[in-house]
């Protein structure tokens, strides 16, 4: 007898988002189980960031519809902890360790735990030796690693990443990607947007293609890249992004 499917961490049913007269997302349905690694791909303005913000509950109710967000579900007897890393992380004009401690403080982590968790998180991303340095004096790659440490310190069930390596040099990209791989290795559910299809192949278990605010197709990663039965728009996108495959 098969075990019943686990309750999803997040579900969206025909979810949408609208800003004034602009429809940023429409009719998006998907669900995320623990351990899923979903890559969101699509052109600029296709709705990837809006979808991440909707999933994370950052869109005001006036703009969002149809979402059953993480905090509303208790699949494991409690509200899942979610964290998000943005394309350009906002770091406070404070030392590195304060930026991590602030996140923990905002999440209500007791003071006694904050220091230890901060040290662990900074060690995890290789910034322990820079704990007292001004956060804003770090390089772009280090800042993104610090943002990951701040998110990882919260012990999230779901981690949302908005083009986390978009503005980094190849070396910093590799570092951040290795950290992402390590984090998902711990069973964290990952949702990330990317223009780097190689990154999607390497890190994701599922890929969703968005176009003009609509979720055109969402499939397991292998089917997405290898199955010829992909919708026309997604095929065109892949051809544009991977011209050598045509």
């Amino acid at each position, binding site marked *: 007898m098969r075990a019943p499917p686990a309750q999803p961490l997040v579900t969206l049913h025909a979810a949408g988002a609208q800003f004034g007269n602009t429809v940023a997302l429409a009719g998006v349905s998907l669900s995320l189980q623990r351990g899923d690694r979903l890559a969101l791909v699509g052109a600029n303005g296709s709705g990837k960031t809006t979808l991440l913000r909707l999933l994370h509950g950052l869109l005001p109710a006036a703009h969002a519809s149809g979402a059953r967000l993480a905090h509303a579900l208790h699949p494991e007897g409690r509200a899942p902890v979610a964290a998000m890393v*943005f394309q350009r992380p*906002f770091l*406070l004009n404070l*030392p590195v360790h304060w930026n991590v401690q*602030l996140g923990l403080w*905002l999440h*209500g982590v007791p003071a006694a735990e904050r220091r230890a968790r901060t040290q662990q998180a900074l060690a995890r991303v290789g910034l322990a030796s820079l704990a007292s340095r001004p956060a804003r004096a770090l390089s772009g790659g280090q800042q993104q690693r610090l943002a990951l440490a701040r998110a990882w310190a919260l012990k999230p069930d779901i981690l949302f990443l908005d083009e986390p390596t978009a503005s980094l040099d190849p070396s910093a990209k590799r570092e951040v990607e290795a950290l992402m791989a390590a984090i998902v290795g711990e069973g964290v559910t990952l949702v990330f947007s990317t223009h780097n299809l190689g990154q999607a192949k390497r890190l994701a278990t599922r890929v969703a293609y968005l176009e003009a605010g609509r979720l055109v197709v969402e499939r397991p990663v292998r089917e997405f890249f290898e199955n010829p039965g992909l919708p026309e728009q997604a095929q065109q996108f892949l051809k544009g992004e991977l011209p050598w495959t045509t």
Partner: protein
Amino acid sequence: MSVITESLGTATQMLAQGDERLLQTVWLSLQVSGTACLLGGLLGLAVGAALAITRFPGQRLVVGLVNTLLALPSVVVGLLVYLLLSRQGPLGDWGILFTPAAMVVAQSILVVPLVAALSRRLLLSALSEGGDQLRSLGAGGVTTALVLLVHERLAVLTLLLTAFGRAIAEVGAVMVVGGNIAGVTRVMTTTIALETSKGDLPLALALGLVLLAVVALLNAGVALLTLRGARQGVVGAEAMA
């Protein structure tokens, strides 16, 4: 020209000798304007933060009003506070008219719109950069505003310095509500006005020099903090503890 040089010489002598009347006036000015800046600054920051993080009907009107009050003449503030604190006024029972407390009230009211308008701008800019990210970490509106004020602490300090400059340099409000009573409510600006009208230029000039020196010192302090902050990035970190 000789009057000016002679007055400057006497003023320098008074400063060097630590003239008691001069020191007393300077100390009262610093006390009144410092307290007003603290009280008005806190209220102004609260108003500015509230206007930056909340949305309510008529908000544009309130913002327009605060911006208009930036040009509030100090003598008008003095008149309003006088009417409030006079025996027949609604706050007449306080019995603080013609005391330093009344001067603090007047100067506090004077700096509130300045701090509110500038801090609102500052916070709106910081919110557009990091508001969502702080919310994603779990910060509510008030916490976001507080964290961003710590983040922008050097700008806030500069803003408060501007407010202090506005308070300590004004003459109209303190003259009306303080009455310029010697040894009780006589501050630098009212003394300068009085002594000039009496023809005692050395004291007026000496106080003018002190006024400039106070502002210059504060400016230098902020510049040093800014420099240190740029080098170390840790100024005010203890405030987060």
